[in-house]
């Protein structure tokens, strides 16, 4: 379980807050899609969670312990992270990229290899073919699969995903979303998934948290959000695609 309590963050001294008074919980095994426009603070909230940046006020608890009371290095190793820019290491082959966290944790070479093969298989990339390649030899979709495999390497309970499929073409994105859904089913991880894409949020999230200019406008299941939007912003956000679809149908 991850719980956010009155979380606030300001970057510039005396500047506008990037996040203010954010409170919600991500239940164990649940996926929450953090939906918002760019600049809404959704990536910052993710980065606060594994202490890439620290909160100014309020608290974040992972597994019931405040993250500020945990060693940031250990915390990050316990939480899988999939980066917006993928961030595979260009000088390491795919196997080393996938098993890097295990290496940091001091696991044996044979365990690293076994686990890397398992994970590559799981994300649909046969290790025989891909283990020895380097990131630049893969397509964008393949690289992102490796990014997911890397995040899962140490079998973390929590997974933070920052617009992982943002840079992919629509068809590849759709495929990966479906694969993520089946992985999610199988692995039962607690996931925070950042996206600016409403359909992706609707597909991936068990619940959707809508961030608007640093504030949490609403959190709820898709039915709740679509049927009873809490603010005009949420209403517009989900109203517009519906209006577009109706326009195309007519």
């Amino acid at each position: 379980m991850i719980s956010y309590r009155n979380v606030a963050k300001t970057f510039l001294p005396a500047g506008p807050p990037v996040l203010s008074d954010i409170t919600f919980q991500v239940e164990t095994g649940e996926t929450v899609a953090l939906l918002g426009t760019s600049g809404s603070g959704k990536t910052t909230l993710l980065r606060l969670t594994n202490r890439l940046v620290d909160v100014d006020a309020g608290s974040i608890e992972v597994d019931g312990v405040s993250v500020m009371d945990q060693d940031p290095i250990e915390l990050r190793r316990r939480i899988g992270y999939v980066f917006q820019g993928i961030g595979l290491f260009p000088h390491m082959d795919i196997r080393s990229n996938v098993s890097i966290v295990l290496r940091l944790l001091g696991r044996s070479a044979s365990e690293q290899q076994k686990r890397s093969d398992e994970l590559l298989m799981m994300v649909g990339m046969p290790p025989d073919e891909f283990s020895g390649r380097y990131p630049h030899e893969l397509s964008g979709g393949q690289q992102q699969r490796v990014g997911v495999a890397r995040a899962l390497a140490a079998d973390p309970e929590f997974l933070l995903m920052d617009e992982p499929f943002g840079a992919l073409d629509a068809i590849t994105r759709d495929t990966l979303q479906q694969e993520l859904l089946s992985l999610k089913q199988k692995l039962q991880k607690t996931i925070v998934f950042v996206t600016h894409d409403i359909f992706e949020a609707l597909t991936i999230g068990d619940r959707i948290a809508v961030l608007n200019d640093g504030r949490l406008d609403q959190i709820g299941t898709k039915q709740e959000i679509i049927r009873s939007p809490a603010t005009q912003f949420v209403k517009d956000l989900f109203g517009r695609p519906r209006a577009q679809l109706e326009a195309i149908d007519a």
Partner: protein
Amino acid sequence: MIESWLTFAAGRTAELWVRTGEHLVLTGLSTAGAILLGVPLGVLASKVRTIRNPLMGTVGIFQTIPSLAMLAILLALTKQIGIVPAIIALTLYALLPIVRNTLTGIEQVPPSSLEAARGLGMTLWQTLILVEVPLALPMIIAGVRTAAVVGVGIATLSAFIGAGGLGEFINRGLALSNTQLILLGAIPAALLALIVDGSIGAFQWAVQRRHGRSPLEAIVRWVVRPAALVLPLIISGIGVYAALASRQENADDVVRIASKSFTEQLILGEIVAQTIEHHTDRTVERRFNLGGTMICHEALIAGEVDIYPEYVGTALTAILQLDGTRSAGDALETVRNTYTERFGCIWFDPLGFENTYVLALRKEVALREQLTTISGLASVSNSMRAGFPSEFMERPDGYPGLRRTYGLSFANVRDLDPALMYQALVSGELDVISAFSTDGRIEAYDLALLKDDRSFFPPYQAALVVREDLIAEMPELGPLLRRLTGMIDTETMQQMNYQVDHHQHSPREVARQFLESMGLVKENG
């Protein structure tokens, strides 16, 4: 031409190998030193903003220090000549490309990789070792490549401080105006630079991270990678061995004789060396061709060499920084007393000749203008073109003082290499040059000399300077070296210089003939 050079080189293959080996050791050890020092400094500069500019500035300044000055400074600091100061100097020169490329390489690591490293829970150290340095590696290797290739070139200067290497041939060739000798150093040095460039290039290729698809490529890579790592180790091994071996030579009964790097000094050095070899059982170590007055002097007072020939006027003005206008007797007395007090070194009685600066003209010009003195030259100097070597242009006892004393104002004054200067005078492109009075070329070209009628030039008698400690350890050397006192008059010295400069006899041979003719060594003895 090429054929005769190849024959010349073939006769010297043994020494060529030794010098090439020394050259590799110098370049290899200094590059290794620069990597060990430069990569951490580059990393530091990339991490600590405040030291970045001062550090890069300092490293840059090393590159601008002229090599001879650098060697002289290091000699004064380390109190040693030979491989140690040479390697320190070369290391300092090699730092800039390595530090700068390390810094640039680390700064070019993609932000996405750094973000990923943090997000996955790497410590700062792990980020550095697992991500930043490996990603900067191609850039770092490129810096090492530059440093090593430039280093092969600069290492030729190590010969000036007695560290050997291919520069030994070049220096000797320059001192003796022997082109074949110069090429014997320069050509292998150029080849070496190409080989070093090529092998580091191959290493660069081998460490490129790519999925090797061709098995041949994988095998080649598998061979090249360790080879490039092992090679520097082997070179370092040889270097350590050579250093240890040369240390053993510094045994008790060794006499180390130095000389500057021009013909006369090489001949005098040989005369001293052969005299000692002939009459005693002592081993003589020749540390000839050192890069100038200051390096010889520093080496002597640091106890790195025991004897070298020096000139009274040079010691007075260049070393002791005293006024040079005094009588010969007074000059010698002053130098002698100061050396005993300050340096623990003895000036022996002069060898018999003076090697002073003189102004020389073509004989027909001297006759036409009826010139015999420098005072006379002053009245016609505004129609004359002069050429002087750069040292003469600078020294207070050279052109600046001369001009003031005599009121000279030449139509044109040029700064020239000594060898070119004579050519230019004889071919009529210059009218006046400064020469050394013992230079064989004065007689060879039949030049007229002008009298220093106001005694501007200090007295320049040549004499041996010897460390007191040496005479204390080997008392028999005192009387032996005194036998050379007054034995070499100016004409004899001129002729010996001419034998070497013009007829290309070796200094060793000329010294031998001189000693035999004087009965100082027995023929075939």
